[in-house]
């Protein structure tokens, strides 16, 4: 399978009143054609900032270093004009909150059309046809009527369908979905996940799915990276991740969710909370909360070790012949 996105040593910093803070600090990963990569982590781990860095949508006080190669080009070196042909056309994004990411003053049809007209040389009539076809493709009833409706007239689940229709309208090679179902109810979430899975099968698009919900990861993803405090701490395929998680953070995360099928009196907890971006520990960033921390963990930051079918940033596996 060909690799369509390759992120190497991505560092994203923000200038703030507390000085320069590194929110993403040396992140490496790649996405292959037709694959769904899950990016898991809790708030503040840098998962959303990673996606904004790829799309070059950082606020003015942010800047990225390293390389993000998409189809061979380094996205970070493109001019703003070149970037515009990538954004929305080759890489599209679906955001968490469909109400704030749709323009309330335009009909949903016009908003889908806008993307189509911007990126492809088609007439208005063709663009309208495309917009209605996309609304039908995402399972909207009464597509012709909904074309002329405004976002406030739609429910949360319908708005998210519109976002997906918009993202898919230019046949992108990669869709970055940032918590696409977090704001939705479970029964609606099930509908949207089902839709995304079907569309992916039909079009062969790659998906980068950012979420904090391990259940969603298990259902949707082929491969997963787990992020903690701006770094990748574990990377493996989805089955290995759930059957044989290695990093103590991943293990802690999995044991802290109540299981619908298994009953436990107490949940495991990860003591303390995530370190602040401008007060990162010297050694391993997870060491202060880790039950397996050793002296070396507090001294020296571990590399992302290459193990068999697995990558893990933890000193516990340094002896397994892991190589950085």
């Amino acid at each position, binding site marked *: 399978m060909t690799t369509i996105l390759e992120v190497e040593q991505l560092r994203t910093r923000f200038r703030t009143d507390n000085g320069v803070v590194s929110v993403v600090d040396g992140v490496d990963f790649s996405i292959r054609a037709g694959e769904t990569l899950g990016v898991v982590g*809790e*708030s503040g781990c840098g998962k959303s900032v990673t996606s904004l860095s790829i799309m070059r949508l950082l606020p003015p006080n942010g800047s990225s270093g390293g390389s993000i190669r998409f189809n061979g080009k380094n996205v970070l070196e493109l001019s703003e004009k070149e970037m515009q042909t990538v954004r929305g056309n080759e890489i599209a994004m679906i955001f968490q909150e469909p109400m704030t990411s749709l323009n309330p003053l335009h009909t949903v049809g016009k908003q889908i059309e806008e993307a189509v007209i911007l990126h492809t040389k088609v007439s208005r009539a063709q663009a309208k046809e495309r917009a209605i076809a996309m609304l039908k493709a995402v399972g909207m009833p009464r597509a012709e009527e909904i074309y002329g409706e405004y976002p406030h007239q739609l*429910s949360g*689940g*319908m708005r998210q369908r519109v976002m997906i229709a918009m993202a898919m309208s230019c046949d992108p090679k990669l869709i970055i979905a940032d918590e696409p179902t977090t704001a939705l*109810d*479970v*029964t*609606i*979430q*099930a*509908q949207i*996940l*089902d839709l995304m899975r079907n569309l992916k099968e039909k079009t062969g698009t790659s998906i980068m799915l950012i979420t*904090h*919900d*391990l*259940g*969603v*990861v*298990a*259902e949707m993803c082929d491969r997963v990276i787990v992020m903690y405090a701006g770094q990748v701490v574990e990377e493996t395929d*989805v*089955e290995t*991740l*759930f059957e044989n998680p290695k990093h103590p953070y991943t293990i*802690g*995360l*999995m044991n*802290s*969710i*109540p*299981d*619908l*099928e298994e*009953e*436990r*009196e*107490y*949940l*495991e*907890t*990860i*003591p303390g*909370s*995530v370190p602040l971006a401008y007060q990162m520990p010297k050694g391993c960033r997870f060491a202060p909360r880790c039950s397996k921390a050793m002296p070396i963990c507090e001294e020296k930051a571990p590399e992302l070790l290459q193990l068999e079918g697995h990558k893990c940033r933890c000193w516990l596996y340094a002896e397994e012949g892991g190589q950085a």
Partner: protein
Amino acid sequence: MTTPLLEVKGLQQHFPIKGGFMKKTTGYVKAVDGIDLQVFPGETLGIVGESGCGKSTTGRTILRLLEPTSGEVWFDGKDLAKLPKEEMRRMRKDLQMIFQDPYASLNPRMTIKQILMESLMVHNIGTPAERLKTIEEIIEIVGLRKEHLNRHPHDFSGGQRQRIGIARALVVKPKLIIADEPVSALDVSIQSQVLNLLKDLRKEFNLTLMFISHDLSVVKHLCDRIAVMYLGRIVEIADKRTLFENPSHPYTRALLSAVPVAKPRQKRERILLTGDLPSPANPPSGCTFHPRCPYATDICKSKVPSLSDIGAGQLVSCHLVQSGELLSK
């Protein structure tokens, strides 16, 4: 059978929709539309449902944070819905609430000490010295330290703030606590800390808890009995085990099957509901679930089903389950 600590009968909460000339009432949003439930001493009753089903409104109406449209709320031999305001204020000592958003529910200009002291002063509990002793005890019970008392809410993380919210509810030694989505705003690793704390406190104080949440796995973890709400009504209520092993109402089944499970190899049969939640301002006729129900028949469109016992204390509001046409799994 023990007598319930709280008994709700036919509770309704209708919000008027005003519009047009002279702001005439043009209709009602039936947020809660006839709820009956009982909460027994020492138990934790979970209320689950999706957004807009009326679960939060139910909690708030029971506590008279919203004046009920009609219905009875029996607590400790008194009907809360009809108590004069002054008497209700005194009752609040026994009925406390924990809110969802730990950022919005603590006054940012008060220290933690002032926040906790206020509850005790309002209810005239103890002398100033006793009050201080009580709050020093409670702050350690919820896992914070005495030094924290002089700080302000902004000094704390979300999980710590939720601990303060819990301390504030506990400090007056209430008989019933209604917790409205207390862990939804927290990250999973912090959520588990707060859930464990609630479990410990429940044992220590023999608390009766009404736990409102949209998260089925959290509800299953914490609650003894669970009520499932849909569009302002309870569609099913049963003890935890029965509900999860033998969900009977078609909505309960769909809801349970929709939860993503963290097991990649396991492929489950999923009941995908079509369409969205109808508007509570204009609910469907008969059983309000019928437009989305895969089994709906003619009777479902015309007649409102009652909530009745199908055995072992499992109450279901569905014509087809009650007549035996739709068998439990």
